[in-house]
């Protein structure tokens, strides 16, 4: 079974600054995928970024990038130039087989 751990229940950042959210996971799988999902107050689950485990290059999507360390089983999310609209709950998720396993989430508050 896979486990996903997000050690930061809450974080805050000033608008326009950079913040990094941490995620670690445990698995015996070799082929898997990792994701960050954003859940704003509307509760909609929005896919932010994905990373294939077989790829060494870190994924980037505009202001969002990841630091994927496969050997350390670490998958952190960096948000650059934080915006007020980034305020949300962020979930790290692991996919293998046919289901997603989520971490406990990090609540991010972007302050003006």
């Amino acid at each position, binding site marked *: 079974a896979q486990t996903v751990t997000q050690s930061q229940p809450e974080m805050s950042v000033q608008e326009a600054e950079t913040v990094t959210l941490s995620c670690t996971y445990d698995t015996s799988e070799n082929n898997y995928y990792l994701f960050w999902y954003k859940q704003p107050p509307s509760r909609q689950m929005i896919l932010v970024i994905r990373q294939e485990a077989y790829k060494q290059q870190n994924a980037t999507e505009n202001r969002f990038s990841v630091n994927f360390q496969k050997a350390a089983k670490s998958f952190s999310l960096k948000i650059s130039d934080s915006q007020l609209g980034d305020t949300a709950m962020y979930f790290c998720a692991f996919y293998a087989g*046919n289901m997603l396993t989520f971490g406990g989430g990090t609540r991010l508050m972007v302050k003006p």
Partner: protein
Amino acid sequence: AAGVIQSPRHLIKEKRETATLKCYPIPRHDTVYWYQQGPGQDPQFLISFYEKMQSDKGSIPDRFSAQQFSDYHSELNMSSLELGDSALYFCASSGRRGQKAYEQYFGPGTRLTVT
């Protein structure tokens, strides 16, 4: 682009009643997943279907059942509702298994309140 549709968006039921949640996947998606997110918790996988057959099963109570129909929509049936069933229920869909099956797109969720 078309997204995952869930209905109803909100549902209020009393204890011991029955509820049915519906999910309409993105067109041409053949796999449907159900997740339950309790207050202040992360989403928990319940069950999934691929090509109208149950694919995987997670922490779904025996009081719950689900199926996928010929048009690929899915229904989650919940009986003998308990207060602890109050949660946000997400449906997600993905494309053909093996071809970006890992990309799950979530619907807006159905908020179930049991009183």
